[in-house]
């Protein structure tokens, strides 16, 4: 008797929990669905068609032919590997630099408020303008950085220097994003754990690597995941600095040229879908490989 009563109460509780969960998620889910549902579906459908906006009469379904055309094209793969290079290098630098910045922002004994604010300024500046700033800085004669290089060199016109400048601009701009997420992660590491460790004789390095970092793992992985997803879609910096000259195009830039410049909705959408699939694969790798548990796979009522 009591057992059944307890059982029913438990079921009611479960049902209430489900209802509550659904209600809480509803606004977010609804907005995301309404705003991006049709556009994403439309893009997918377009990638299966031959559709140039200027020749609407030639529109037709061609299955995966667009994918074949893009995946066998030299321009695409060039852009792809450039994007991979820029992503890997810049995210790696940003992780280390971001951690250093996070430590500085969090632990500094002086000017704490000012530090935390100033560090965010690069991230807060309009990207296009920051990119223009870098462009002028590296233009011979006009810029102060160009003046430090040997006479006659124009770094933005050659592939390797241009890529280095792009990575520099990207790292400068988005490291604060990492730093902020990492600092929030630092903030939840309990101070007394570190105290206990230091009383046990651990050095600062050991405290950092054996206590702080493991406790920060969720924050690090979220920061890495989102930063990588964003880095792969780099656009503004390259658009302003070189517009893809000297083979420095990224996948987003080449998709833009085809979709908006060439008005080739079929090819452009195909590129978008391919970018999405790559990014999704990266996210999947993070989630499975690094063991970042998706929110919701643990926790709850203990």
């Amino acid at each position, binding site marked *: 008797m009591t057992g059944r009563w307890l059982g029913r109460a438990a079921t009611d509780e*479960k049902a209430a*929990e*489900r209802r*509550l*969960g*659904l209600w*809480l*998620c509803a*606004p*977010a*889910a609804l*907005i*995301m669905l309404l*705003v*991006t549902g*049709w*556009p*994403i579906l439309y*893009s997918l459908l377009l990638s299966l068609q031959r559709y140039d906006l200027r020749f609407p009469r030639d529109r037709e379904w061609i299955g995966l032919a667009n994918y074949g055309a893009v995946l066998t094209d030299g321009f695409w793969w060039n852009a792809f590997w450039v994007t991979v290079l820029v992503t890997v290098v810049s995210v790696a630098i940003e992780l280390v630099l971001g951690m250093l910045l996070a430590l*500085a922002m969090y632990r500094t*004994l002086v000017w704490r*408020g000012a530090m935390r*604010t*100033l*560090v*965010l*300024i*690069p991230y807060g*500046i*309009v*990207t*296009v*303008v920051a990119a*223009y*700033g*870098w462009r*002028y800085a590296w233009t011979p004669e006009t810029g*102060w950085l160009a003046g430090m290089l040997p006479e006659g060199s124009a770094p933005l016109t050659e592939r390797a220097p241009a890529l280095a400048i792009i990575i520099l601009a990207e790292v*400068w701009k988005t490291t*604060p*994003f990492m730093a*902020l997420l990492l600092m*929030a992660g630092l903030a*939840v590491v*309990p101070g007394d754990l570190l105290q206990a460790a230091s009383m046990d004789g651990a050095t600062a390095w050991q405290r950092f690597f054996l206590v702080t970092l493991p406790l920060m793992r*969720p*924050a690090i992985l979220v920061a890495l995941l*989102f930063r990588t997803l964003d880095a792969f879609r780099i656009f503004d910096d390259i658009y302003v600095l070189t517009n893809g000259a000297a083979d420095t195009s990224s996948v987003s830039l080449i998709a*833009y040229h085809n*979709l908006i410049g060439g008005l080739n909705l079929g090819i*452009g*959408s195909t590129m*978008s879908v391919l*970018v999405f699939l790559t990014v999704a694969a990266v996210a999947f790798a993070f989630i499975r490989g690094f063991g970042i548990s998706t*929110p*919701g796979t*643990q*926790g709850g*009522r*203990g």
Partner: protein
Amino acid sequence: MERTPRMVARWAVADLLVVLYALVPVLWIASLSFKDPATFTDGSFVPRRWTLENYSGIFDNPAFVRGLVNSVGIGLISTFIAIVFGTMAAYAVARLDFPGKNVLVGASLLVAMFPQISLVSPLFQIERALGLFDTWPGLILPYITFALPLTIFTLSSFLREIPWELEQAAQLDGATPFQAFRQVIVPLAMPGMVTTAILTFIFCWNDFLFAISLTSSDRARTAPATISFFTGSSQFEDPAGSICAAAVVVTIPIVIFVLFFQRRIVSGLTSGAVKG
């Protein structure tokens, strides 16, 4: 940690390096904004001839001022709503069990990952059909949408770290679930909330793609977009001085916003609920 003069000095040096990293390129942009146009190409970091005409010029431009107003309004509203909806969803994802949880997480990642340039044209058509084109909601809705994934992920990962026992203890003490949430969870989740609020606001404030494509007049056009409408004195001239001046001006509200909120990032710890 003891505050010996040596430690203070060490931190001061470290801070200085950080500040240099963050500010030198910004100072370069500021310097370009103060440079007299005739000396624009002289390659020096500090302007040889100073002028304020770039700044007076942009404030004489009603479109730019209106753009600032739009940016502030749209940014604040989008951030507020995104944090509200995002926290609700993050709590559900972190704490509760319900069907479709993984679908929601996957879908929000999908939204975060799909290249936005492909979404602009269909979104434009939808907004025109609904009459939302060139209006505040026309920008607010996409901004909320693209801010939600990061919000949900960050906040749910924060909320998951907070032990469920804390809420239970508060409820046993007689608090309603809502009170338990507000008094126990919110302070602990504050670092995450403030962080995402800052990042969301910056995203809304600096977005260019949607601001350009989903507006056609200064009714809803935000400040970064108005920058690309500045006139040079001829069709080929980039009004670089005005652009840099506008960039400096556009950055100031961000600085204020962050200054205001950065204190709260660590305030949650001092409430002491985590101990024990």
